[in-house]
């Protein structure tokens, strides 16, 4: 990538004014996307991202500059331009870089670039046929294949010099079922921090059939009733609700500024005592894992909430300075085009003691959200919204019928307190999380949980 000499020179140029810390992030990434619709390969795109990001701190002030014109003269020019925004007296005279070898706990067996496009297409076709053949009502199947092979190097004025390689592979399957002029869709997007061996680990056809099953179930469903009532949120991608409604509020990005409802509440009860929640970027080969974060800090398991008590936040270097706390291995960014900040990795609610059957049989009336769609949150107010991808009405302790079109809204802090049953079936699902430092892969997860009351929006009147 860049020579150690050039790295030191760029860091020193960045600190030539009043900065007290400088960092350089070099990225070389190969991406492939192949899109298939109804069994026909329509597009294939491959490419290479290559660029450099330079960040300078002066106390809690931060300046970021990036470029992909990486010749020496331009890098020095960019570093000096950025430094000009932090006037002051020079604080760092010399930098000694110490190469740090990272413990690689995410083994990669088959580099996707070594696999022909044809083999990738064969996996996609398997998914297509499984979904398409599931039911006569399936009228359309889209399968996208994605792989990314990111090599990074990070160096900073504290002497850190390290590197990492993140290889991720994912298949995204969308099935559409039609009945008359109505259409409903089902989605599954399995992915891992793994190479092409992903497809030795997962049953592509099973995921495809699940996507198709959701679509067919929903096209034959009635609309969900609206109102406030108990909601059972299934495991796996159901964890998106914790991710959006609570996880973002535990990121130092909003905590440091006091804009999060969880700011200043360490040691306080913020959730039902049934809730223990963790962010863990060190799970081997999980979608949101990486060996080190994008500031070079080792990823680790961070307990966020334990038995309802707030235990910790997810912290990056800059916000760590603001909060007087140490980084937690959560600094992440989409690419060199973004300054890193605190983000989630693999975030989940830990298993409890109930079973799914117990939860359903103990619910007189409610919604069972078997598959969640996406959602979003306003971190300042904690107000969230989610769509339910596949829902069922529960009546008298039994699943009565599928329902569609439900949306869940509420405030994250309220929901946490209203979790009154937690099952033992923890599972995770894969998503792309968009925030300040771009779009990044993140696992969400939980066991099946029940929330005693959520506002459910739908198109039918009150239940």
């Amino acid at each position: 990538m860049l020579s150690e000499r050039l790295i030191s020179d760029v860091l020193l140029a960045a600190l030539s004014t009043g900065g007290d810390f400088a960092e350089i992030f070099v990225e070389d990434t190969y991406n492939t996307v192949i899109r298939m619709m109804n069994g026909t390969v329509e597009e294939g795109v491959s490419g290479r991202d290559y660029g450099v990001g330079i960040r300078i701190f002066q106390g809690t002030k931060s300046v970021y500059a990036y470029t992909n014109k990486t010749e020496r003269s331009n890098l020095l020019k960019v570093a000096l331009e950025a430094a000009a925004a932090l006037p002051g007296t020079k604080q760092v005279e010399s930098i000694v870089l110490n190469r740090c070898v990272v413990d690689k706990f995410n083994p990669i067996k088959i580099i996707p670039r070594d696999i022909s496009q044809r083999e990738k297409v064969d996996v996609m076709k398997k998914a297509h046929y499984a979904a398409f053949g599931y039911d006569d009502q399936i009228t359309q199947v889209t399968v996208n294949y994605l792989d990314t092979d990111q090599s990074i190097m990070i160096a900073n004025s504290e002497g850190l010099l390290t590197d990492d390689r993140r290889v991720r592979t994912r298949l995204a399957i969308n099935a559409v079922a039609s009945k008359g002029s109505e259409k409903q869709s089902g989605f599954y997007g399995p992915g891992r921090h793994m190479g092409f061996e992903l497809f030795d680990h997962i049953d592509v056809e099973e995921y495809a059939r699940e996507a198709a099953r959701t679509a067919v179930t929903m096209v034959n469903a009635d609309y969900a009733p609206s109102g406030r009532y108990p909601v059972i949120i299934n495991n796996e991608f159901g964890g998106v609700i914790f991710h959006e409604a609570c996880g973002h509020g535990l990121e130092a990005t909003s905590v440091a500024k006091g804009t999060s409802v969880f700011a200043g509440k360490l040691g306080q009860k913020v959730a039902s005592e049934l809730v223990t929640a963790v962010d863990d970027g060190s799970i081997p080969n999980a979608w949101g894992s990486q060996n080190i974060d994008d500031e070079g800090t080792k990823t680790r398991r961070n307990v966020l909430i334990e038995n309802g008590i707030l235990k910790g936040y997810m912290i990056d270097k800059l916000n760590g300075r603001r909060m007087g706390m140490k980084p937690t291995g959560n600094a992440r960014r989409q690419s060199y085009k973004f300054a890193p900040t605190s983000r989630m990795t693999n975030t989940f609610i830990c298993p409890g003691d109930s079973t799914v059957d117990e939860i359903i049989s103990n619910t007189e009336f409610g919604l069972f959200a078997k598959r969640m769609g996406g959602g979003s949150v306003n971190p300042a107010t904690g107000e969230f919204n989610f769509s339910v991808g596949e829902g069922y009405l529960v009546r008298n302790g039994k699943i009565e019928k599928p329902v569609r079109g439900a949306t869940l809204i509420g405030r994250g802090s309220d929901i946490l307190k209203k979790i009154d049953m937690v099952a033992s079936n923890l599972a995770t699902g894969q998503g792309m999380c968009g925030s300040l430092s771009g779009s990044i892969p993140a696992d969400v997860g939980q066991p099946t949980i029940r929330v005693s009351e959520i506002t459910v929006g739908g198109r039918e009147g009150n239940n």
Partner: protein
Amino acid sequence: MNIQQFKDRVFEVGRSAGLEDMEVYVSQSKEFSVRIFKTEIDDYSVSSVQGVGFRASYKGKVGYAYAEVLDETSVDLLVSSAKANAEVIDSKDEIVFFPGSPSYPEVTAYNDELSSVSPEERIEFARELEARALAADSRVDLVNWAMTGYEESEIYIANTKGLEQSFVRNGGVSYVSAVVRDGEQVKTGSRFQFGNDWSKFDAEKLAQAAVNEGVSLLNADTVPSGEYRVMLRYDAARDMVQTFSSVFSGEAVQKGLSLLAGKLGQKIASSKVTLVDDPLMPNGGASIPFDGEGVASKTKKVIDQGQLTTYLHNLKTAKKDGVESTGNASRASFKSPVGISPTNFYIKPGETSYEDLLKELDDGLVIIDVQGLHSGANPVSGDFSLGAYGYLVEGGQIVRPVDQITVAGNFFRMIEDIEVIGSDLEFGIPGYGGNVGSPSLIVRSLSIAGK
């Protein structure tokens, strides 16, 4: 290598590798942004980047590749990857590489004055945004966003059929969001401004509007569930038009992803609705003289007084339909394949002011924001169910703020149910999906879920 040399080299290497038609799409951009928090520079970012997208036909199929560094390694990568990607394509669609239109319209989207504003002036503007917002009301707890940014970009497209066009644009953006508090209740209010006339950027006005909105939402409560007559304020209306804009794409229609298939010439919306795509609008956020395939841009009505008059096409979809391209081929970025997107895309404003709209609404809800559009709205079915907030209106007067509600309905039904169109057309921040605008709209009925 400069861009010309790089292009020539790629075409030369591509030809010897057996590639047939080839095209490069190059974007170069410079950006600056600054964010202030508690009077300090919280974030300051400068960048200069370039990227080249390459597409080529091989045995009649088209493959794509991209790179960011203009060197010999990238030349080889582009040629070999595009060829490998072309080899697996089994779509029968015929891809046309366009030799160029006979002439191109004059479009202005670059303002010299904006480009010469210094970083210090921009920093000062962001500081002023924060200070003005803090001073605007005693209930402002803090200003969680006060930023201003600048971007200039150049697009260059050239192919082996002789096409060669380029275009330069610039734009500035500013955004402020205030957190307001009254007891336990916390709300946010925000405003943005986009444009390339720096003299029109007004920190005082933006800050005041953001704070007013936040304060107006304090002590909000839900409403009983039911069917309500609804006014979608211009920004909520715009978000809906943006989310459902793909239904007008010829590609979505041909692939069975739009319920507008087979409806050309038919009435699909209230006769009050005229929907325009205008790439020639002076200094519009998505104004450009040629589209992502090099076809000359032109203005058209997509809906004319309720009647669907055209879909948006690129060369591929136009050919399939036996019509001419509408000049709506898009490249979301140099990394993206050719798709279809609107440009400056807006519902033509009516003559009713916001105040008069409230009177027309009489009893109902004003919705000023909808949330969860990426998951709670389905462009294929038209169904939506979204988190929302706004105001309760009785007898033409706002009586109180409303939150914790969802609004549900169907887009196709909604555009038929538009009863009054406001005069307050506002555009959003231009992005990959074009630059969308709408005035406020009164809709006969939508389902609200509250308590």
